[in-house]
């Protein structure tokens, strides 16, 4: 089948390749772009390990053809530490680390990219809303409790930072 030339921006960098239409975005990310942080679990949309952000929205990269992402902006787990000082983690990653929210780490990138938009919320989401936000990602190792704790911890930190920020502007 005819190959197509596609250009996909991932974490701010444009990757170009000649691909078969049937190439999944997950495979483009891993093999063409060499970004292996995005993992492939079930390859039919239920496990969430392959979750990335497309133009800011979390999606299943195993359920999108690479040709469909042409000209779009993709953000993977590798993008979370972009622009941060060497060694510093994204608030979500830091929280996962502290609460032991990962063991083998296979599901973790999917959780992080799926959860990042939650941190943009103005108000603290309820426990029920947090559980709902976690529901689309499967983890075989942790039993989810520590992942839940990680999300709450990250949210608390991000929200208190946001609340503190206006005070730093200082008026006359």
């Amino acid at each position, binding site marked *: *089948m*005819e190959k*197509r030339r596609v250009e996909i921006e991932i974490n701010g960098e444009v990757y170009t390749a000649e691909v*078969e*239409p*049937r190439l*999944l975005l997950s*495979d483009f990310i891993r093999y063409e772009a060499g970004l292996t942080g995005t993992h492939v679990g079930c*390859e*039919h*949309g239920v496990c*969430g390990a392959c*979750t990335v952000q*497309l133009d800011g*929205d*979390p*999606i*299943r990269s*195993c*359920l*999108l*053809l690479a*040709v*469909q992402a042409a000209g779009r902006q993709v953000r993977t787990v590798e993008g979370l530490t972009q622009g941060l000082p060497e060694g510093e983690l994204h608030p979500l990653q830091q929280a996962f680390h502290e609460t032991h929210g990962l063991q083998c780490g296979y599901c973790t990138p999917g959780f992080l990219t*799926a959860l990042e938009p939650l941190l943009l919320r103005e108000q603290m989401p309820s426990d029920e809303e947090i*559980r*709902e*936000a976690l*529901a*689309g990602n499967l983890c075989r190792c942790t039993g989810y409790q520590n992942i839940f704790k990680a999300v709450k911890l990250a949210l608390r930190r991000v929200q208190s930072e946001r609340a503190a920020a206006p005070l730093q502007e200082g008026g006359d």
Partner: protein
Amino acid sequence: MKPAPFAYHDPRSLEDALDLLAEHAEQGKILAGGQSLLPLLNLRLAYPEHLIDINRVADLSGVRRRDGVLRIGATTRQSTLERSPLIAEGWPLLSEAIRYVAHPPIRNRGTVGGSVAHADPTAELPVAFTALGAKAHVASKRGRRVIDLADFFITHLTTALAEDELLVELEVPPLAPGTGHCFTEFARRHGDFALGGVATLVTVDPEGACSRAVIVLLGAGPTPVRAEQAEAELIGPQIDSKRAASAARLAAELVEAGEGSEVSKTYRKKLIGSLTRQAIETAAARSREESAAAIGQTPAPRES
């Protein structure tokens, strides 16, 4: 596994999409959200030779209200429906139903039209749109037609769409004043395919008597099932628990699904009966709120 090879087309206009559909009707498949199709391709349960990607077709998505009637473009993302204040205000049954559809990443790509055209027997949107009396606007090279959703679902994964036809829009009439809604379902885990569910609308007059009821069952059979006898049971004076329960029993009698599936028919009957009773009570309570609000919207002028 990976999809089998296919020829990929991404038309930019509806006309081009319909031309492609006419040409490749037999060996072609429409790609919209892809959240049901890609799993089938990845597992090689389906291997169409042509894929017609309609995501870049102009003017096929959007949520609009014109003369009180809701019009939803077929490629509107489910998450757009979820976030729409217009729909939350005028058609809250849809806002309630959409939250049961899979998970946010699926809803960010899945389309409203795709869910209806795919016609999975446990899908939420077909049931909700059926309850709302929606119509499907369908196009092909041969012309356009409008299909009542009551006539749209033939059996599981099979609709009244001809091979060369594309669902382009869903049209939903406004709800009558004093109408309360409830959509509920039960799945083992949040976001899983439902084991059973129901969409209910109850309309009451200012005295609280029920003038209209709609009950559509999810998972009772290969298509959404309208429980007409149960509906008739609810018409009359204000709905109480006793009538809700007897209506639910009538609805449960319609449950046919279950043989050979993960839960038995007996289980499904009990589940759907129970959900229907809960939904009727919730919709009835909401209808009384709606009725009170409708009256309250014309306050008497205050003396100053």
